């Protein structure tokens, strides 16, 4: 679960970097329609893993 969260956050951050470093409308669309939902899902997944008691590590990694 932690890897899924991290991958989604990384994807969201790459879109954010792209948008901030080159502010044109075409880079804002993925930022708006993909980046923010990815971050929201990542936080939900992380929150779920914390609630399940495995927050911070994947099964077999902790």
């Amino acid at each position, binding site marked *: 679960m932690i890897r899924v969260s991290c991958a989604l956050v990384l994807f969201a951050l790459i879109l954010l970097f792209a948008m901030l470093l080159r502010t044109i409308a075409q880079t804002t669309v993925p930022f*708006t329609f993909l980046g923010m939902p990815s971050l929201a899902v990542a936080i939900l997944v992380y929150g779920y893993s914390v609630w399940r008691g495995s927050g911070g590590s994947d099964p077999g990694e902790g």
Partner: protein
Amino acid sequence: MICLEGPIRCLQAIFVSAEELGPLFVHPGGVQRLWLVAVLIALPAAMIVVAGLVRGRLEPSTALAGIVLLPSFAYLLGNIVIMEESKSVEFCDSCHSVMGGVVRSISEPNGSLAATHFMRGYVHPSSEACYSCHSGYGIWGTLEAKRAGVMHMLNAVIGTYEFPLELNGVFDIDACLHCHAESPPFRAVDAHRDPEIQAVLVSREMSCTGLCHPAAHPPDALGGATQ
């Protein structure tokens, strides 16, 4: 007046950063360096999530910072930056195939209402000329302009724009009245004081352009940049 030196130079002057023109042109305040703060906050978050991806585990406090707090704050700042940057004429022109013709036309002496306002410096600030006229008055006007703008960007990316461009709905003349309503020359015009004309304007049955004033943009500018 830069615009008297020709339309191309006039438009170039808008796209040149204020810093390049000199300290006289730098607008106080703004969010010029906020993007850098957002990047600096996003960088440690990126390093944390890369470590999490590789190792498969993170300390709870590190995970909270790298997955929740830092990215959320970076996105908040990113949103503020894009909200400001998306007001610029340059941003509108970045969807060049759709908006290129319209953006070029505002700096050409074609008699259109937009060009007349832009070339005489009536729209303030000139660097946000599109936004100034296409956002309604007050906070709801701003929100509506942002909502419409997001859909414009999406349509530009997925290519669902149809040419010639047409106004979606009725133009919000509050954008005109925001500047003109308190202007003495505007108030002195008989037609503006006529109760019947006022009624159809207030009810949005009639707009400023078309019948009384020239079109906002010339028809040949509405076919996109390639036409």
